[in-house]
């Protein structure tokens, strides 16, 4: 498993695209949107930054799915999956080896964005342990969905399109772009079925209300359950993925 993970991490570090999507673009979004909304009357500065920074952090974690889809499709097209299946490495180790580097990247992404928020906008970070656990679950959700998408889609383009629908659609419906309180009632009901909403709720509870791990058990449970669904889909799709692989 570590052989795959080390190689994958090395490849990702050399990939300029992943740096742009993961770190540069989210920071640009945060800077622009904080600038736009921080001048509004009647809205507390703390509320704005605890909406925008974790909101965009949650949204951009899902963009890791693009890199995951590209990696897995390339492995399939080049016959790398079949080649690895010919080695003694068990299937689950292949998945784990592929998954761990992306998990690390997403955790690093969240850390960088929150650190940026803390240093530039004085973002309160709340209970560090709760923040770490929440970030682990958020990263697990985004990467497990990435894994599921990567083994199911037929092409890179299809994967990129679906990722954007999930990331942007989920952000819109999950209230990542604007506080859920100002949305219509029907949207406030719909958002409860969107995992992104629970991601943001968890972070808000920690950052805005000073909550600990026990206070975020509902978001954690929902993120975990949705993540497990992603993993199960990925495992069940592996045989088809292997069959489609060139060798």
């Amino acid at each position, binding site marked *: 498993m570590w052989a795959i993970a080390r*190689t994958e991490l*090395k*490849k990702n570090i*050399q990939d300029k695209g992943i740096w742009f999507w993961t770190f540069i673009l989210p920071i640009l979004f945060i800077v622009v949107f904080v600038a736009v909304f921080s001048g509004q009357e009647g809205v507390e500065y703390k509320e704005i930054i605890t909406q925008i920074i974790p909101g965009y952090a949650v949204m951009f974690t899902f963009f890791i799915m693009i890199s995951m889809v590209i990696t897995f499709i390339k492995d399939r097209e*080049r*016959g790398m999956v079949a080649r690895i299946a010919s080695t003694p490495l068990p299937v689950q180790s292949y998945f784990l080896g592929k998954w761990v580097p992306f998990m690390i990247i997403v955790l690093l992404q969240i850390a960088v964005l929150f650190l940026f928020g803390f240093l530039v906008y004085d973002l309160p970070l709340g209970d560090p342990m709760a923040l770490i656990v929440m970030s682990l679950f958020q990263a697990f959700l985004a990467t497990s969905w990435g894994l599921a998408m990567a083994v199911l889609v037929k092409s890179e383009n299809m994967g990129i399109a679906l990722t954007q629908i999930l990331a942007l659609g989920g952000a819109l419906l999950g209230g990542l772009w604007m506080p859920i309180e100002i949305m219509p009632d029907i949207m406030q009901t719909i958002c409860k079925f969107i995992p992104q909403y629970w991601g943001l709720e968890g972070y808000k509870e920690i950052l805005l209300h000073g909550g600990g791990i026990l206070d975020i058990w509902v978001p954690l449970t929902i993120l975990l359950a949705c993540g497990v669904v992603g993993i199960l889909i990925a495992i069940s799709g592996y045989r088809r993925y292997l069959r489609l692989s060139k060798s």
Partner: protein
Amino acid sequence: MIEVARVSKSYGNLQALASIEFTIDKGTCFGLVGPNGAGKSTLMKILAGILQHFEGDIVVDRFSVTKEKQAVKQLIGYVPQELCLEETLTARDNLLLFGRLYGLSGKDLHNRMEDVLEKIGLAERSKDKVLKFSGGMKRRLNIGCALLHEPAIIIMDEPTVGIDPQSRKSIFSIIEQLKADGSTIIYSSHYMEEVEHLCDSIGLIDKGVLLENGTMDRLLEKYGTPSLYVSGDTIEAEHLHPYPITSKGDGFLVIDADPLFVLEKLVIRFRELELQPRRLELYYPKLEDIFFQLTGTMLRDN
């Protein structure tokens, strides 16, 4: 060493392999020949442990592919038709990856890597990224990745596809060296001359059926009688009467149990008739001719 027992595989209604049976002796090179879509790659994938759902079984050095696949995988080095390389990484990184996948580590892995780099002739380019390599160099690295764990059996699925003659020659010398080291090699190709040149025994496969297998000598003894090849602008079929003939290229193959005798007779006849053959030579059948006899089609027609 390897015993393939009644292996069948279907994809839906398509029968990819139909009850394939053969054995390969230890330390020999077995060539699997057939046109594209014959079932070669499917059989290779089964042998390499990639395809696990099939009928029958394969026993490799006492281990069953269906029951003890991990043990079998450790014995095998698989060189796929595709270039399974991480192009943005160096040759060294690629070898490290595959070495680790087979459980090598530390000094052992590094020593093996240096040996393999020497063997495939890439020692001086080992720190270059693969994307800077020529097609032939990538093919050699693709082979190298399968050699790190010193497998007893090396499966090569069309390892010379799409490369120049010089690179092909270089790959042949790697294979010759592996043979000299005592490795058992399973070599699949649709280039008949490659298989004839490299392999000790040969299996001819078409439409999922193993048509014939054995040593080249045995196949020639069974299917190939030497004949006489005649061609020339003025040479017509009637000039070769009464010998049985078949057309081949621009001329004719004269088939007779004693082609030397026919050659003698024809030389006399051509002198009398003042005919000038362009080519008049003994023709020893090749694998291609045996395949034609068995299937009615030339391999290149496919």
